[in-house]
């Protein structure tokens, strides 16, 4: 069994009830697993279900443990390892504030255009860009903004969904 560290994106369908996030987060901290990102929101109001997308890393044995431990939580309806289960789409959204004037301001706009980031707010001295894409793309954009007056970043963490006609079952 390989000891290599793997990065996995896992989708978890849970009852939308108080304490559920604490259960999931407590599981990770209590057992010493990594959470690289975690997003949660209600996705099926009729059935009162929320979907958690989390990105974690560990050896294959740890990843399997993480999935088994998640599945064992009583309010969990299902766990899918999107990384293992085949092609899927991963997206992250970020709001990025860049402050500055003159050349730098123009350069930030030009790069935003290349990255298809949208300007969602502007003042004479600042822009807020909205950008979606892979984690890597967002990282790259943030890096480029650093010398151009980056002042604030807010990111959602990864959301992901499997490709093809089938839903979460």
């Amino acid at each position: 069994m390989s000891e290599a560290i793997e990065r996995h994106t896992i989708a978890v369908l849970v009852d939308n009830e108080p304490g559920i996030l604490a259960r999931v987060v407590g599981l990770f901290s209590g057992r010493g697993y990594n959470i690289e990102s975690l997003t949660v929101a209600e996705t099926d109001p009729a059935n009162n279900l929320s979907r958690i997308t989390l990105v974690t890393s560990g050896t294959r044995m740890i990843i399997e443990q993480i999935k088994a431990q998640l599945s064992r939580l009583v309010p969990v309806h299902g766990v899918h390892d999107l990384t293992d289960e085949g092609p899927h789409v991963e997206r992250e959204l970020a709001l990025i504030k860049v402050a500055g004037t003159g050349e730098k301001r123009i350069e930030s706009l030009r790069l935003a255009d290349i990255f298809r980031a949208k300007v969602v707010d502007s003042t004479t001295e600042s822009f807020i860009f909205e950008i979606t894409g892979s984690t890597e793309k967002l990282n790259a954009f943030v890096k480029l903004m650093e010398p151009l007056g980056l002042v604030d970043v807010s990111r959602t963490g990864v959301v992901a969904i499997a490709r093809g006609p089938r839903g979460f079952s």
Partner: protein
Amino acid sequence: MSTEPMQGAELLIKALVDQGVEVIFGYPGGAVLPIYDALFKQNRLRHILVRHEQAAVHAAEGYARSTGKVGCVLVTSGPGATNAVTGLTDALMDSIPIVCLTGQVPTHLIGNDAFQEADTTGITRPCTKHNYLVKDVRDLARIVHEAFYVATHGRPGPVVIDLPKDVLFASGDYTPPEAVTHKSYRPQVEPDPQRIEEAIELIRGAKRPLFYGGGGIVNSGPKAAQLFTELVRTTDAPATLTLMGLGALPASDPRFLGMVGMHGTYEANLAMHGCDVMIAVGARFDDRVTGKLSAFSPNSKKIHIDIDPSSINKNVRVDVAIVGDAGRVLEAMLAALKRRKAKPDGEAMAAWWRQIDEWRKRDCLRYRKSDDVIKPQFALERLYAAVKDRDTIITTEVGQHQMWAAQFLRFERPNRWLTSGGLGTMGYGLPAAIGAQIGNPGATVIDVAGEASILMNIQEMSTAVQYRLPVKVFVLNNEYMGMVRQWQELLHGGRYAESYTAALPDFVRLAEAFGGVGLRATKPSELDRVIAEMLRADKPCIVDVLVDKTENCFPMIPSGAAHNEMLLGPEDAGGSKKPVSEDGMVLV
């Protein structure tokens, strides 16, 4: 279908009764007064008043483990709930089905640091299988039924229901158990037939098979233990049991090698090291069993049967994983074995048994006999001789006495050995004995104790006296926290920091002060008489057995060592005397 609306506290009692609860172990307080009021007005539920909430949970555990029913607990908010935490953690680690009701401040005060408020669901989240905060009386009965379902299905465990006081006063409709199905929790019980075939294939090709049975067999029920025994006998393979599994195979069966693990027998541990096919049933490859993981049973194919998928491949990689209830899996395996007339290779098995007999000749539990001082092992041998023909339930505290009890007392059936395995909780044994005696009024219930551990829940003598429970506390009194002393001797250069208890109470007079019987044995020759007197006592009884103060418990696999690096006692000439490695020192 629902009748008159009822008050929350009454709904609760009705739900408990409908769940078959007969006994509840508890302690009152402001937040649960409505429940005590409702208890007062009925006579279907019996309440046992303990003297500390930790003991309420251990008593419920003792009741559950000895009867196969759910143990039920009732404590107040704040300190009542926090006192219960050790018991809940104990039940979680040993997979014991418990439903614990905790009082809570009224909903409008939650979060205000109100008097006796504690974030009970927050505190107990990591030490329960699941927990609930009931915010609306309309959910109350459903949640109780769900809690019993969760506590008993899949891998059993403790469930907390936190009950704000206003919810207990509010009125609402009752929901009967039949009307409740859990939304999401459906643990796998039936095994995958393909995996069964793979397991049978491995067993058939085995030359040195070994069964390794654990508490999962006991939890599954007496039928599972019967099937396990049948499987062991059908294959005529050797079998070992974990601390939690003792009784899953009759100790008198010649195929039983004794307990495995840190203080397991030489033959069990070497068989585990040397087997070529290991069949783990309801056992979780705990670190007390495996020793050094990288050297654990290096040449075996492993079959792992467990109801909890997260137990599989957690510590040890296995070759065939079978998720399901131990009873159902064993049944399927037996059927498949018989259908295929599969048996391990006869000649190879004969050689394997010859090897095991060689190991057995080492007589690893041998100890130096004495006419002057009571050896703890000897005290247990005499105890066993006196109780073996009775229906005896043994509980223990934690320490050397616990390991000696596991080695020297023999269990012919499950649910008769109750010990804190996973958490190792000193103070477990007396309350557990009380719970066991409540559930088994006719049985002889004995807590094999250490003098340090017993002081952690000694107040429960008062409970035992109140309910006229003839539980017996058999204290192997070495004046030391013996297990701590043993580690200090072997691992810390004999620097006995704080492991000696000066100013111990006089246990005989202590028992009498509580209203029980106190006895003492100081010489080996007194043991039989004192034990007989203890068995005759119809009141709670403490026996103070003054044993050798410096006896160590062997065999021992020091932390971080492999099974074949076991330390044997001073009576053994050839045992490993390898010092403990630095890696091992950091382990517990």
